[in-house]
């Protein structure tokens, strides 16, 4: 879809995405010439349709994670369905450890994905680690990688709860 600013005859650019609640998704578009903004609000049915297709309105900021659709949408997922490649540890130190690929948070690119994550380590604040620990294990590895990718894409060195909030809004991560 394209949104045309009739005043300027210019295609409006995607600016922001939010999931404010009630199954609504808000996608903000702005005219690059006059700055006029508009918000597209989808109803729950439309939000479901987009979600079920595994696509993001406005494009993806970070690559799709393996089995992201199933993990994001399956109700009652088994807690131990996924394990990290290394023997799982439950300490905060492990959760906050470097996001190397072997710890399940790496910045690799899935086949067919066009993203090129920026190199460099991403650290997690203790508060962010604690919050990550509350994420259900069914999606925790995936969520950790998504936040790490987001931090790299935005040149953020340390992931804090504020960064997680911002990423959650920007990426439309309902329930994460």
């Amino acid at each position: 879809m394209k949104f045309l600013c009739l005043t300027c005859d210019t295609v409006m650019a995607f600016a922001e995405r939010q999931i404010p609640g009630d199954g609504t998704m808000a996608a903000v578009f702005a005219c690059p010439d006059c700055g006029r903004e508009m918000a597209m609000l989808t109803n729950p049915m439309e939000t479901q349709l987009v979600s079920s297709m595994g696509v993001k309105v406005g494009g993806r900021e970070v690559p799709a994670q393996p089995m992201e659709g199933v993990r994001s949408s399956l109700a009652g997922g088994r807690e131990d369905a996924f394990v990290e490649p290394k023997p799982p540890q439950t300490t905060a130190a492990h959760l906050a450890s470097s996001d190397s690929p072997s710890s399940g948070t790496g910045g690799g690119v899935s086949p067919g994905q066009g993203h090129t994550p920026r190199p460099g380590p991403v650290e997690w604040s203790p508060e962010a680690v604690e919050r990550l620990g509350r994420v259900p294990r069914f999606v925790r590895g995936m969520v950790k990688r998504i936040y790490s990718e987001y931090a790299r894409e935005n040149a953020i060195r340390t992931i804090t709860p504020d960064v997680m909030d911002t990423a959650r809004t920007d990426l439309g991560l309902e329930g994460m």
Partner: protein
Amino acid sequence: MRRFRTYNEVDHSTESELLEQVLEQRSKLAHRLEAVGTVVAVASGKGGVGKSAVTANLAATLAQKGHRVGVVDADLNGPSLAQMLGVRNASLVDQEDGVVPPKGAAGIPVISMELLQGAHDTPLRWRDPGADTFIWQSTMETTALREFLSDVAWGELDYLLVDVPPGTDKIARLLELVPGLPVALVVTTPSDMSRSVVARSLRMLAEAEVPVVALVANMTEYHCPGCGELHPLFPGDGAQELARTSQIPIWASVPFDPRLARETDSGRPWVLEEPEGQVAGAFLELARQLAATHIVDPSSQEAP
């Protein structure tokens, strides 16, 4: 009245990139399947014909013959293959380039909704983002199947068997994701009801121009453990009639043996338990036909 330009007349790359994202999903799927020799759909169109047991035992037979085999349990609402291959409670390894599936009997990697759901009796339900029900269930199930195929680190395989649930719409879903599907095995029984229902699946596969379609006649005869002889399990022979009218060959006739169901349901494909028996012989013939049609010589390829 104002005249608006059409979508394509507006010269601007779309910011939402929805189409591009869908194409990227398909590209990722195609990339993953490049390492698979032959995708084989095991379908039926009708439930209760023993399709999943056929899938598990065919996979075990192929693995025993040295082929590299993976199994996708596309029956999202009634999954059983993780159980049949003995890995019901196993975990998937969460890697960024794809989740690594557990290896079941005979070292066969398998992905199944069984591995992802909590309690064994949990029905398949999707979280909804605010509405009462997940309206786009079918779309979500297509996404799940796509991810089973594309987001699992299958590695190099000679065969990837896809156990397709009953219903012609489910076959269509697989054909949408794997448009060049090379082989479909259609499981039937000698019953007249099975013949008429399975015929619809054959029609769909023919219209989709799947190159190789063959029948597997399951439960053709009953092997009496008392006298050791074979007796008909159903009146008539619907499978033969179906083969005659559809011009589709029967590659294997599998006799009914209660031990096949009991052992396979317990995570031990029967062909591994009694490799010299009549059931195993039928699956050897099925594997031979498959290998003869889509020649995959594991010895000519590097070991995984």
